[in-house]
């Protein structure tokens, strides 16, 4: 099953997004990498690495990031773990996590999930 890592500057937000996915996909492989080691705002290279290892399998891991350094730090982690099957998704973090985990538990491949997630940003919520 494809795994997920939620990367946010805020520990609470990352934990909350993981929590949100439990509604529809309680068995999903998903962990949070939010905030710095001491709980303050920021994105931690080490936390992201640890989180990836926690949910990794040959099916791959998808990273969902909020903004700025979350994206850049995720990129740097990918560069050092480039022998593994890890990708970043370009989508809203909460919606992406819910849609992605639902698909993952029903057996979708990493490519299928990434394709689906790529459409989320352009999907209107109103009208």
């Amino acid at each position: 099953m494809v795994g997920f890592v939620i990367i946010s500057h805020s520990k609470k937000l990352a934990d909350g997004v993981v929590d949100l996915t439990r509604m529809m996909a309680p068995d999903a492989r998903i962990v949070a990498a939010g905030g710095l080691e001491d709980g303050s705002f920021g994105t931690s290279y080490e936390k992201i690495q640890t989180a990836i290892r926690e949910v990794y399998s040959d099916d791959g891991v998808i990273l969902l990031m909020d903004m700025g350094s979350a994206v850049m730090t995720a990129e740097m982690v990918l560069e050092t773990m480039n022998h593994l099957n890890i990708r970043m998704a370009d989508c809203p973090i909460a919606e992406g996590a819910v849609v992605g985990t639902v698909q993952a538990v029903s057996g979708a491949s990493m490519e299928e999930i990434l394709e689906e997630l790529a459409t989320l940003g352009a999907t209107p919520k109103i009208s």
Partner: protein
Amino acid sequence: MNTEKLIRVIHAIGEKIEAEKDYLTGLDNVIGDGDHGINMSRGFQEVEKTLNAYADKEPGDILKAVGMALVSKVGGSSGPLYGTAFLKMGMALKGKTDISIEDFLKALQVAIDAVMLRGKSVRGEKTMLDAMIPAREAMESAYQEMVGTTFHAEKDSVVGTDSTKEKDSAVGTTFHKEAALTAKVILAAGVKAAWEGVEYTKTIAATKGRASYLGERSIGHQDPGATSFTMMLEALEGAL
């Protein structure tokens, strides 16, 4: 610049960052998320811890270690950005035991290209690049100008010496002293241009980074990243 001197320079940069920590955070409070000084200080504290193990390593490896420490500990955008810059400079200087000003300018260009790629940014977006790029350009011009004069001075100094051996050592000494002096003058030109770049960031709206959320309201405020880069360059110049 050899390992010993590079370590001294990095200590000097760390001290500067520590001294300006509150000022940098203050700048970031206005147009960002108010953590630039805190983040940089946390990063350079980690660098300080790492440096002890590098007293006998080559300069390129030291710069790579500085980069990794910043990536690991900073927590904000300056982590991956400065981290990438130091890492790439370290890679560009691989195998060198003594960094010349020419090596430095080449490596700085590699670092700038890497920062542009990492941040998906160009000059004029109110970022550290607005200090880095003009600083490098000014240093390159100063270098080109001085290479001409140094070359002539060297040739003149050789005239009248009989033994080839003496000739070589005379040129060597002259060159070494001049190289240090040259580096200092070139760095000074870079620092001046970098501060001008910082001033320029006050006049433009941010289109990259957290400050871009403020749009036009970011005008009038200087960019914290451009400021911290300039301070680091200034610390380097001061430690030469």
